[in-house]
């Protein structure tokens, strides 16, 4: 590769037309770059796009068993129709909605609140920041071990975990069965560990945003007689909206594929805590149904794509506009 680029300025060989020479020079200028990225393009092409295609293709077949000798036929969108008709699947979609709403609003609320508390600088900021952020270093599986215990549904004399803490603090009325109830909003409890893990991340994003705004903007607004609230409302917050959007996208797509946490707290086949990602596991290994599991996964992909693709295009667009 070095040889071809080094000779970029070398004299053209005889017989070259100007046009051919021109295209060869252009190729020499960007060819090595393409060659350098080529292995990654191949890997991403195969392991992302080809596999996504394979899953989508399987989702439109009647491959309802792992038998390699079974005849497989294309059946269009039948699996999707039957999936949306399943009460179990509808239940997982509802659970996912509740989980996502609480997860998103919880992380955004605490993330912004902590960033606001820290952004002007406090003594021991490093300690607060590290502690707020540390749950992120812990895997959902390890966190699941302790949260499974904390969110136990045992109450009264048998209570353990948070229920028992409530009892000791004289707050017995707060005891509840958390995620394991049949209540419509039980998944709000499953969002608690998720909020615990990722609020610090959102805080770090917002903190970076606050620190990125030049100080003279605040000073100028204060000089103009703006109250502290007005400074935030009209000067600082508008500049943080790209960060808020990034945070929403990142947390939102994590919520869509939330699997580890639920698997380790509730188990893979829990009905109460089922979401599409865990139901896919059930479809695959309890029902041995790759076609329906693929349909389920493809729907997840589409939900994510509907949000992420416009975001990526928008980001690209804005960057071009700024000439970077």
């Amino acid at each position, binding site marked *: 590769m*070095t040889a*071809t680029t080094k000779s*970029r300025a070398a004299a053209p060989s005889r017989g070259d037309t100007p046009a051919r020479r021109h295209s060869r020079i252009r190729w020499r200028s960007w*060819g*090595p*770059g393409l060659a*350098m990225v080529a292995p*990654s*393009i191949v*890997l*991403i092409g195969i*392991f*992302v796009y080809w*596999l*996504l295609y394979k899953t989508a293709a*399987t989702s439109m077949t009647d491959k309802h068993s792992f038998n390699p000798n079974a005849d497989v036929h294309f059946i269009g969108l039948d699996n999707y129709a039957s999936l949306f008709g399943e009460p179990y699947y509808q239940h997982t979609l509802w659970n996912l909605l509740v989980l996502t709403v609480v997860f998103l609003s919880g992380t955004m609320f605490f993330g912004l609140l*902590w960033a606001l508390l820290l952004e*002007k*600088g406090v003594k021991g900021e*490093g300690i*607060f920041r*590290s*502690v707020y952020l*540390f*749950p992120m270093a812990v*895997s*959902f*599986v*390890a966190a699941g*071990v302790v949260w*499974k*215990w*904390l969110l136990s549904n045992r109450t009264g004399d*048998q209570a*353990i*975990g948070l229920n*028992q803490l409530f009892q000791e603090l004289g707050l017995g009325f707060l005891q509840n069965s958390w995620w394991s109830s049949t209540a419509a909003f039980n998944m709000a409890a499953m969002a608690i560990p998720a909020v*615990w893990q990722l609020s610090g991340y959102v805080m*770090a*994003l917002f903190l970076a945003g606050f*620190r*990125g705004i030049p100080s003279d903007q605040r*000073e100028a607004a204060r000089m103009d007689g703006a109250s502290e609230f007005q400074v935030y409302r009209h000067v600082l917050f508008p500049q943080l909206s*790209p*960060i808020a959007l*990034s945070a929403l*996208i*990142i947390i939102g797509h994590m919520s869509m*594929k939330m*699997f580890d946490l639920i*698997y*380790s707290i509730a188990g893979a086949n829990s009905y109460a805590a089922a979401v599409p*990602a865990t139901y896919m596991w059930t479809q695959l290994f309890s029902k041995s149904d*790759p076609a329906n599991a693929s349909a389920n*996964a493809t729907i*997840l992909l589409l939900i994510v794509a509907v949000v992420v*693709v416009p975001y*990526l295009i928008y980001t690209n667009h804005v960057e*071009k506009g*700024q000439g970077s």
Partner: protein
Amino acid sequence: MTATASPFTAPVPPPVERSTAVRKRLTGRAVSARTVRYLLLLAFLILILIPLYVMVVTSFKTAGDIRPTTAWNLPERWSLDGWAKAWDQLSGPLLRTVVMAVVAATVSSMLGSLNGFVFAKWRFPGANVVFTLFLFGMFIPYQAVIIPLQEIMLKANDLGLPKGIGTLIVVHVIYGIPICTLIFRNYYATTVPTEILEAGKVDGAGMWRSYLSIVLPVSIPGFVVTLIWQFTSAWNDFLFALFLTNANNGPVTFVLNSLASGQNPDYASNMAGALLASLPTLAVYIILGKYFIGGLMSGSVK
């Protein structure tokens, strides 16, 4: 977007100093506001540490000491039994996971550096589209690739790819390419002046020479960020481990989960195991945390 691209390498920038004029206005109200601020910060600190407290306290209890009524108390007698048992069960998987996470993080960081350099400084026609296609790979739910991935990897195992950790390394390297490329691209776009590369070109330096002599030497901060990021995500992964490995060749998350989901959980050793499984990533955060926050800022808040 550009406003937040700068604190890439730097730790979190210090807060803006208030001018003395403003500082003098600190009245009684401001003092009590500050008190409230600290009380809130402290309250949240305690809330966040509750699960950690439970893990630590329980991990040092003896089996007889673990009763619902005293679950929130300190151990009556501090015992290392839980830790010893957890170590017995997890030391093998821990070692495997260290190898896996270190190799996977190193390789995908190197690929990310090469790609990031090209996308930032040595672009080819259509580079923007390719880059966006890469980025989308970062967001896909892995559920949508995992079924055919399992088939491919089984075939690769038949062809000689080592099972277990070897397979996971390949998978983590590949799915780490998008984020590492993004981080390095943003890093090079802001830290490597195009003029220097142009000057190099005039002097006849090709792409490799430019990369090795100009770009790579200033890449250490970028590598710190991607290494931390990739190490953590490979270490904490569970979904790939579940589909591609088993308890005898899988990483620590897999084995920990199998231990903790038993019928009669041994809380002391489970909690000790969860702590053991978290110590490497926690150490990384504590030692290199400020770079990590810097990396978060640039990698994700573009």
